[in-house]
C-alpha cells in the first residue's frame, strides 16, 4: 500500500463522507417524521389514510432503494417533476426509511399496555395529549434499538447514491479505481471511512440497547 496515495486521496474521501452524512442525516430526519406521522395514523386507525399508509409501506418495503432512486431521479422528470440528485437522495432515503420507521414505531406503540392509555384518558387527557405525553415517550424508548438499527441500515443504503451521480464514498472509490487503478488504496480508504461513520453508531446502539430495552427510567 502506498502511503502517499492514501494521503493524496484522503481529502476526496473526507468530502465524500460529509456529503454522505449530509444526505443521510436529512434522509433519516425525513424518515423519522414520516415514521411518527404514519404510525400515529395507524395507531388511531384513521379511515382512508390508514389504507394509504399501508400501501406506502408495502410498496417501499418490497422494492430496492436503487430502483426507487432510479424512478425518482430518471422517471419523474418525464412527467415534469424535476429534482436535484441531492434532493432525490434525501427523498429516496426518507421514503424508504419512513416505511421502516413506521413499523418500528408501530410495534413500540403496541408494546405500551392499553391500560396506560386508559389511565391517561381517565385523567381527562385528549387522545392527542395521551399519545404525546404518555404513550409516545414510552413507545420511542422501547423503539430506540429498532430506530438505531434503522439508522445504520439507512446509512449503509446511502452506498447506492453513486448511481445517481452523487459523489459519495462509493462514487469516489469507483472513480479512483477506474481512473488510476489504485485499487488497494481506494478500497482501504473506503472501508476505513465506512467504519468511521458506522462503528460509533453501532457501539452506541449496543450500549443504549442494554439500557433502554425494557423502557427503564430512573437508573
Amino acid at each position, binding site marked *: 500500500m502506498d502511503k502517499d496515495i492514501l494521503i493524496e486521496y484522503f481529502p476526496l474521501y473526507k468530502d465524500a463522507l460529509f456529503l454522505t452524512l449530509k444526505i443521510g442525516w436529512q434522509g433519516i430526519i425525513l424518515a423519522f417524521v414520516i415514521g411518527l406521522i404514519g404510525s400515529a395514523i395507524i395507531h388511531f386507525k384513521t379511515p382512508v389514510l390508514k389504507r394509504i399508509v399501508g400501501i406506502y409501506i408495502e410498496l417501499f418495503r418490497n*422494492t430496492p432503494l436503487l430502483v426507487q432512486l432510479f424512478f425518482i431521479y430518471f422517471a*419523474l422528470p418525464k412527467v415534469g417533476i424535476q429534482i436535484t440528485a441531492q434532493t432525490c437522495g434525501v427523498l429516496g432515503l426518507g421514503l424508504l426509511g419512513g416505511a421502516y420507521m413506521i413499523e418500528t414505531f408501530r410495534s413500540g406503540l403496541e408494546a405500551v399496555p392499553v391500560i396506560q392509555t386508559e389511565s391517561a384518558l381517565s385523567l381527562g387527557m385528549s387522545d392527542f395529549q395521551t399519545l404525546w405525553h404518555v404513550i409516545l415517550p414510552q413507545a420511542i424508548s422501547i423503539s430506540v434499538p429498532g430506530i438505531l438499527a434503522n439508522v445504520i441500515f439507512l446509512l449503509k443504503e446511502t452506498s447506492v447514491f453513486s*448511481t445517481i451521480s452523487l459523489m459519495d464514498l462509493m462514487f469516489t472509490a469507483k472513480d479512483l479505481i477506474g481512473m488510476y487503478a489504485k485499487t488497494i488504496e481506494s478500497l482501504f480508504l473506503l472501508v476505513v471511512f465506512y467504519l468511521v461513520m458506522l462503528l460509533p453508531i453501532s457501539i452506541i446502539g449496543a450500549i443504549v440497547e442494554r439500557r433502554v430495552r425494557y423502557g427503564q427510567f430512573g437508573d
Partner: protein
Amino acid sequence: MANLGIDVLFKGTNFLRLLQGLWVSIEISLIAVVLSIILGLVVGMLMTLNNPFLKAILKVYLEIVRIMPQMVLLFIVYFGTTRVFGWDVSAEASAIIVFTFWGTAEMGDLVRGSIKSIPVIQFESAWALGLNKMQTYFYIIFPQTIRRLIPLSINLITRMIKTTSLVLMIGIVEVLKVAQQIIEANRNSSPNAAFGVFAVVFLLYFIVCWPISRLATYLEKRWE
C-alpha cells in the same frame, strides 16, 4: 400511454429481456439464500457453543456484516481479490460470495436467537437421555426452532432479492441495466420511455417481493 413510454416495452423482445434481467438477480438471490440457510444453521449453532475463541471470531464476522454496506463488500471481492491475489473472480461469482457471506451472518443470528429461546432444560433432558450434542441439535432443538425460522428465512429471500439489485454496480446486466439499455435505444422515438420503463421495473420488483413477504407474515402469525 404512448407519451409515458410504456409502449417501448411492447416493441420486439423488450419486455422479455426485462424479465430475463430480473431473473438474473433472482437466480443469484436464490443460490445465495440456499447457501446462506445451510451455512447459517451451522454458524448459528456454533454461536451458541461456549467457545470463547469461536465466539470472538463470529462476533467480529457479524459486526463486519452489520456495518459494511454490501456494495463495499462487493467491491472488495470483485476488484480487490483480482488485485491482491491475482484471482479472476467473475462478477456473478463475486455476487454469490458476498450475498452468501451476508446472508449467512443474518441467518446465523436468527438461528442463534431461536436456539437461545429454547429452555436449557430441553438440552439437559436430551443429554440425560444419552443423546450427544449433534443428536440433541438435530433431533430435539432444530425441530423446535423450525417454525420460527421458516418465516424468517422466507423474509431473507425478499431482502436478498432487493439487495441483489446492487450487482448493477459491478457490471452484471440485470433488470435495471436492461432498462437503461432499452431507454437508451429508444431515446429518439420515445423520449419519455424512462418513466414507463422504470415504473414497470419498480412494479416488477414489487410483484416478486410482495407475495413472498406476505407469505412470511402469514406464516409468522399462524405459527406464533
